[in-house]
């Protein structure tokens, strides 16, 4: 790989911004004649995923959002693999949701959450690449009047071996684009991959080291104004009144507007002016019914759920109640997990221009189609008059998915009040902390029963707390008769989040206790707390049984070979069977999440009983297939930064109905000095199901460290974050 493939998002975006209308955004549909769809530069589209330029370069289409996880590089590798194109001439371009809608959702789902970017679309994007290769080869064969089966393709060059003739994709692209797309499109055996599966460099690095990568925050358009916004700090509250006259004379201020029934925004020449005026603006809130709620109140409600009669069942075997009643030894523990903010480095923002004829949004979103729907709803316009242009996300972690009452809708409501003017709305960090879609709050009571030989005969895991789907996708909860299946991630009866142990008498249930604080999908989602609960408790049970935590787990994992595989891998590499160095203590954890199997083992030392140094973490992942091992390694290592920041530092507390933490000084994040050495074991075992990468590993970070901490100090910590226990990360 000598040349760095050109990444075209910015030129795509800026030209879109400059042109600003209709299908000139990126695609030209043919008015008549042969159905060749052309990219903005006139190059023919071979399949919806592949454009070949006359210079023999390849443009791969991607609709999943890039937020650092490397998905566009991985998806491009999969397309390029099947296309057999020259990787050094690959760039990526983003069709818009509006274009997709106009073409009957030609690009499928845009949503980029649940670690689905690659695993869910791999088959159809690979087929898009393979079909394009077949068409290009067929076009060359037609020109040479030879059977396509006698021609081969490699690195964007087609060869007819018998005659020695060669041509390029660039030369036959026009003819290929006119061919019928084949229906039977066989895919390569992943064992033969040459581009996919390799640790290739990302496609988007160059612009990230010289300041030229454009994030939503950075958009500039002719005539653009900026808006700063404040929503009622109490969730569910409303605007009562505001005194616009007090700030309308301030420098740069253009307009003060109400946004929906709960927000107020100042529009000014610059964002700094808008923010300064907003801070000076007197606003009276109607804080509503939630104005007195505190974290203690919420904790009380959840606590009551731990012993409530009614609960939704997520996993069941045998008769847990009877088994626990008859157990030789009964162990019980209560755990809790707090609200947490995603704290993306780039605060929420969106740029919108609205006219009665057209409304467009430019901004970071993990779900282009979801944002499209929100623009549609807020704009009051028809689907063919609306579009969304995604830009590079300065972090996503689930925060930039589609939620009710969020930043995209706000930006449209602001822009509607200044028709024709593009308005960039930016949240301050303080607004971002105050209006997150928080990691759900949860408590958990675990009761385990051991027989006389220390075997686990019964287990009851009672969750009590918030449902994300009840707030975000109520129709799913309704279809399940009130149950939120997502609550059981990692401990569920089956599927992508199946429980990794076999317990003869098992009950895992959920007393749903929703709060007024809006929940969201926080990287890893519900596996995070479920792993803390079950994997800490497994160590508690092992201790009560007088057994090694690894051996204790192994006895329950005979039916879970892939869970066991990753667990054994980390145990071997950390040296579990040998004593740890003096003063060093080990812990481990495992989970199935997002169809990947993950495990972690760590080595820590503790000074003065509360200063934790994490020396080393071994992490194993079995995602079935690995598309880019180098990016996987980075996602896994980064997962410990995200997961251990959450474990040690992060909690959003509620007082007077609002979130108390306002910025990173109260909501800390790990720095380089605290970063442990992470050794990644990537062990894909194939099969029919592809697992995710971006999220699974987060959940094993915390319990592995909690288990090591208990070994080191004898203290079993059962609530997050550790700062509340006086424990520091050094």
């Amino acid at each position, binding site marked *: 790989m000598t040349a760095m493939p050109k990444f075209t998002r910015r030129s795509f975006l800026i030209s879109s911004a400059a042109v600003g209308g209709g299908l000139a955004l990126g695609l030209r549909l043919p008015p008549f004649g042969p159905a060749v769809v052309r990219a903005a530069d006139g190059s023919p589209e071979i399949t919806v995923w592949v454009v070949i330029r006359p210079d023999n370069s390849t443009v791969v289409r991607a609709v999943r959002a890039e937020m650092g996880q490397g998905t566009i590089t991985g998806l491009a590798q999969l397309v390029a693999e099947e296309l057999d194109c020259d990787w050094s001439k690959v760039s990526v371009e983003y069709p818009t949701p509006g274009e997709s809608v106009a073409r009957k959702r030609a690009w499928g789902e845009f949503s980029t959450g649940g670690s689905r970017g690659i695993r869910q679309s791999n088959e159809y994007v690979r087929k898009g690449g393979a079909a394009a290769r077949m068409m290009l080869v067929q076009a060359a064969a037609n020109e040479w009047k030879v059977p396509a089966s006698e021609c081969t393709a490699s690195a964007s060059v087609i060869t007819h071996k018998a005659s020695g003739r060669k041509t390029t994709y660039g030369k036959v692209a026009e003819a290929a684009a006119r061919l019928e797309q084949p229906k039977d499109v066989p895919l390569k055996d992943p064992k033969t991959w040459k581009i996919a599966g390799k640790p290739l460099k990302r496609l*988007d690095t160059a612009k990230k080291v010289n*300041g030229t990568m454009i*994030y939503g925050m950075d958009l500039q358009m002719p005539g653009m104004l900026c808006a700063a916004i404040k929503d009622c700090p109490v969730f569910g509250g409303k605007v009562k009144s505001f005194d616009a006259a007090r700030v309308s004379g301030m420098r740069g201020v253009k307009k003060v507007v109400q946004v929906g029934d709960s927000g107020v925004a100042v529009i000014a020449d610059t964002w*700094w002016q808008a923010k300064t005026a907003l801070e000076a603006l007197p606003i009276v809130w109607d804080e509503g019914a939630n104005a007195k709620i505190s974290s203690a109140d919420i904790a009380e409600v959840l606590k009551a759920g731990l012993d409530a009669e009614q609960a939704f069942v997520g996993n069941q075997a045998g008769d847990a109640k009877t088994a626990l009643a008859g157990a030789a030894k009964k162990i019980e523990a209560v755990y809790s997990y707090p609200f947490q903010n995603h704290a*993306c480095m780039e605060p929420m923002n969106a740029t919108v221009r609205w006219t009665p004829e057209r409304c467009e949004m430019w901004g970071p979103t993990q779900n282009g189609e979801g944002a499209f729907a929100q623009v549609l709803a807020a704009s009051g316009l028809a689907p063919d008059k609306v579009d969304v242009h995604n830009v*590079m996300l*300065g972090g996503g972690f689930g925060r930039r998915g589609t939620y009710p009452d969020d930043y995209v809708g706000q930006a449209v409501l602001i822009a509607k009040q200044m028709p024709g003017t593009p308005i960039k709305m930016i949240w301050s960090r303080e607004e971002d902390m105050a209006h997150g879609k928080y990691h759900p709050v949860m408590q958990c009571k675990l009761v385990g029963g051991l027989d006389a030989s220390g075997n686990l005969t019964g287990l009851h895991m009672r969750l009590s707390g918030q449902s994300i789907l009840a707030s975000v996708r109520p129709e799913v909860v309704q279809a399940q008769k009130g149950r939120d299946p997502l609550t059981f991630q990692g401990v569920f009866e089956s599927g992508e989040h199946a429980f990794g142990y076999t317990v003869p008498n098992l009950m895992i249930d959920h007393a749903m206790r929703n709060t007024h604080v809006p929940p969201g999908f926080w990287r890893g989602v519900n596996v995070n707390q479920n792993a803390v609960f079950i994997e800490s408790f497994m160590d508690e049970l092992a201790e009560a049984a007088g057994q090694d935590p690894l051996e204790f787990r192994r006895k329950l994992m005979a039916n879970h070979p892939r869970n066991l595989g990753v667990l054994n891998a980390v145990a071997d590499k950390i040296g579990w069977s040998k004593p740890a160095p003096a003063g060093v203590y080990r812990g481990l954890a495992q989970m199935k999440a997002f169809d990947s199997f993950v495990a972690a083992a760590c080595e820590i030392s503790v000074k003065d009983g509360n200063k934790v140094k994490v020396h080393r973490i071994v992490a194993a992942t079995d995602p079935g297939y690995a598309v880019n091992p180098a990016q996987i390694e980075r996602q896994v*290592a980064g997962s410990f930064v995200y997961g251990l920041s959450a474990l040690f530092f992060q909690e959003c507390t509620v007082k007077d109905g609002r979130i108390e933490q306002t910025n990173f000084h109260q909501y800390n994040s790990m720095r*380089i000095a605290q*970063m442990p050495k992470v050794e990644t074991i990537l062990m894909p075992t194939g099969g029919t199901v592809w697992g995710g990468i971006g999220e699974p590993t987060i959940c094993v970070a915390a319990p592995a460290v909690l288990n090591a901490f208990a070994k080191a100090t004898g203290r079993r910590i059962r609530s997050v974050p550790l700062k509340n226990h006086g424990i520091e990360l050094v």
Partner: protein
Amino acid sequence: MARLTINGKSHEVDVDPTTPLLWVIREQVGLTGTKYGCGVAQCGACTVHVNGLPMRSCQVPVSAVGDAKITTIEGLASGKTLHKVQKAWIEHDVPQCGYCQSGMIMAVAALLKTKPNPTDADIDASITNICRCGTFQQVRAAIHAAAKAA
């Protein structure tokens, strides 16, 4: 009216003197590589060099800059030749989302000026930028590589 020297170019800006340097760089000068992350000097995404020293520009009022020479991420390279830190960043494929990386790179470039061969302890003490993606493992490797580069 203030006159600023940014990346060797003189800019006249008409702003309230209390405006943070960060926002003048982004909104008046139009250089958006320097990022807003927190506004309270916690995250370091806004790090620029002021007379060669790393500063969190969200906490520097433009009135305090005077005739100091400011370098932003856009001015770190010498023409088309990337700074050795930028080269190492590409070689080690450091950025994930990349949003914090301008500040991270500026902080590292400043560190290498005072400590051309930093130890891990030096890195731990001086590089305190927040990266939510968690690129630290690559950041550390790239710093050592940049230090070794000519």
